[in-house]
């Protein structure tokens, strides 16, 4: 359960709209059900009162919207950012995609976001209502079954279970207490894969990536993927392609996309959250992050807004590729 409530945020946003500090508010809007929040722009206190919400289902990272919205809206935009979202915000600043003066950032604490898919895995389909209580979630189904209690821990999105930081790295004001960077074991899954044999790894990824339908949701939601035109959409790029024409192109798309965001990916996990086919795409990005950390020293993209990403940097004593590619088993 989140430690700040919707009302606090609405009041603060209304005040800033009122005094003219900001001209619009980027937040989350109530949906049809208890869990389907949509990112939305609010411009009046009435709109905020009618639809704004902040609770355990506001997983969407709003930072990327600033790119589009600051181009559309005159004046400052108030944006509510959770700790991990602020890393994306900084990265966007680093790359000059947004201007700091166009955004008014309110850091909101986050105790981990719930994920309806995680909940469904416990309760099954047919969720009528989700009650957020002190002790956990109470999930009522459509059928005549008894409500199911799900702990916040179990309901949490996988990415939140390995949360890297509760610390806001950029904000104009902060609601609640400043958190800390966490030691989250987020590379455990990567290590598990690395420990497999190449055949097992190949089988694993073949199984995962072959489900890709190339809906581009991972790319379109990714705060690092902000190219004016993606190479995969550009007929002149030579790699444009719309549908996975086979195993190769599924891999091509995801390898190149991961490579393009390598060193820039803040590990916000949105790619995996939005994938309609449940592909653990963050494991590709995390592999790069883990490799970079191990090979070139700890680097957290978006930690500040003026870092030089590791792949556009070097030292004279960097290890050779043959030394880097050593983990795991040898191919027979």
């Amino acid at each position, binding site marked *: 359960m989140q430690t700040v409530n919707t009302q606090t945020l609405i009041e603060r946003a209304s005040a800033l709209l009122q005094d003219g500090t900001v001209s619009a508010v980027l937040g989350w809007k109530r949906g049809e059900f208890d869990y389907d929040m949509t990112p939305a722009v609010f411009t009046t206190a009435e709109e905020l009162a009618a639809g704004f919400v902040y609770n355990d289902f506001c997983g969407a990272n709003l930072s990327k919207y600033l790119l589009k919205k600051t181009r559309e809206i005159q004046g400052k935009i108030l944006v509510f950012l959770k700790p991990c979202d602020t890393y994306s915000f900084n990265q966007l600043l680093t790359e000059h995609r947004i201007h700091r003066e166009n955004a008014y950032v309110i850091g909101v604490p986050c105790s981990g976001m719930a994920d309806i898919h995680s909940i469904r895995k416990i309760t099954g389909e047919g969720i009528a209502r989700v009650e957020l209580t002190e002790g956990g979630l109470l999930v009522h189904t459509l059928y005549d079954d008894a409500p199911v209690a799900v702990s916040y821990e179990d309901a949490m999105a996988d990415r939140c279970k390995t949360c890297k930081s509760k610390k806001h790295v950029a904000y104009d004001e902060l609601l609640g207490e400043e958190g800390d960077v966490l030691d989250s074991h987020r590379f455990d899954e*990567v290590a598990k*894969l*690395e420990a497999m044999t*190449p*055949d*097992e*790894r*190949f*089988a*694993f*990824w*073949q199984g995962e990536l072959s489900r890709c339908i190339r809906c581009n949701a991972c790319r379109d939601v990714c705060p690092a993927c902000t190219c004016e035109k993606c*190479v995969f959409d550009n007929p002149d790029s*030579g*790699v444009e392609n719309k549908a996975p*024409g*086979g*195993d*190769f*192109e599924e*891999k*091509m798309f995801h*390898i*190149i996309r*991961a*490579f393009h965001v*390598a060193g820039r990916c803040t590990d916000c996990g949105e790619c995996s959250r939005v994938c309609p086919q449940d592909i653990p795409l963050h494991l*590709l990005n995390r*592999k*790069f992050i883990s*490799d*970079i950390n191990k*090979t*070139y020293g700890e680097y957290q993209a978006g930690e500040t807004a003026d870092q030089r990403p*590791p*792949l*556009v*940097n*070097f*030292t*004279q004593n*960097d*290890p*050779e*590729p*043959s030394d*880097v*590619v050593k*983990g*795991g088993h*040898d*191919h027979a």
Partner: protein
Amino acid sequence: MSELNQEYKPLIVAFCCNWCSYAGADLAGSNRLAYPADVKIIRVPCSCRVNPMFILRAFQRGADGVILCGCHPGDCHYTTGNYYTRRRMSMLFSMLDYLGIERERTRVEWVSAAEGAKFASTMNDFAKKVASLGPNKRLEDLRCKP
């Protein structure tokens, strides 16, 4: 296995930087140092010109191995190009390995203009290793197969 492989000719694409490795390949030629004809060289100004997309493209189109050759670190004609190459390819190859693609199919080697012999021996060795792996099955595009 070895009998089967005698028939099998791997296709190897080698990207060579213009200033060192391409010249190294030329020197190998001048010194008549043989290496398999399966190796086909593409000249690039600097190893840092090689986009990961080119490497994947080669595999897609049926290459069995891709090798990148550049000046020794510190000797880049453009001072820093191969340092970037080194990082990029370290990361890319590690990713390919992570996806279960045979790591022996990719290699980076620093070959100077004076190292004709190294060029030839590198190509011989790489071609042998790739041949022993057999055809590239894990990064192939079936549409490009005859």
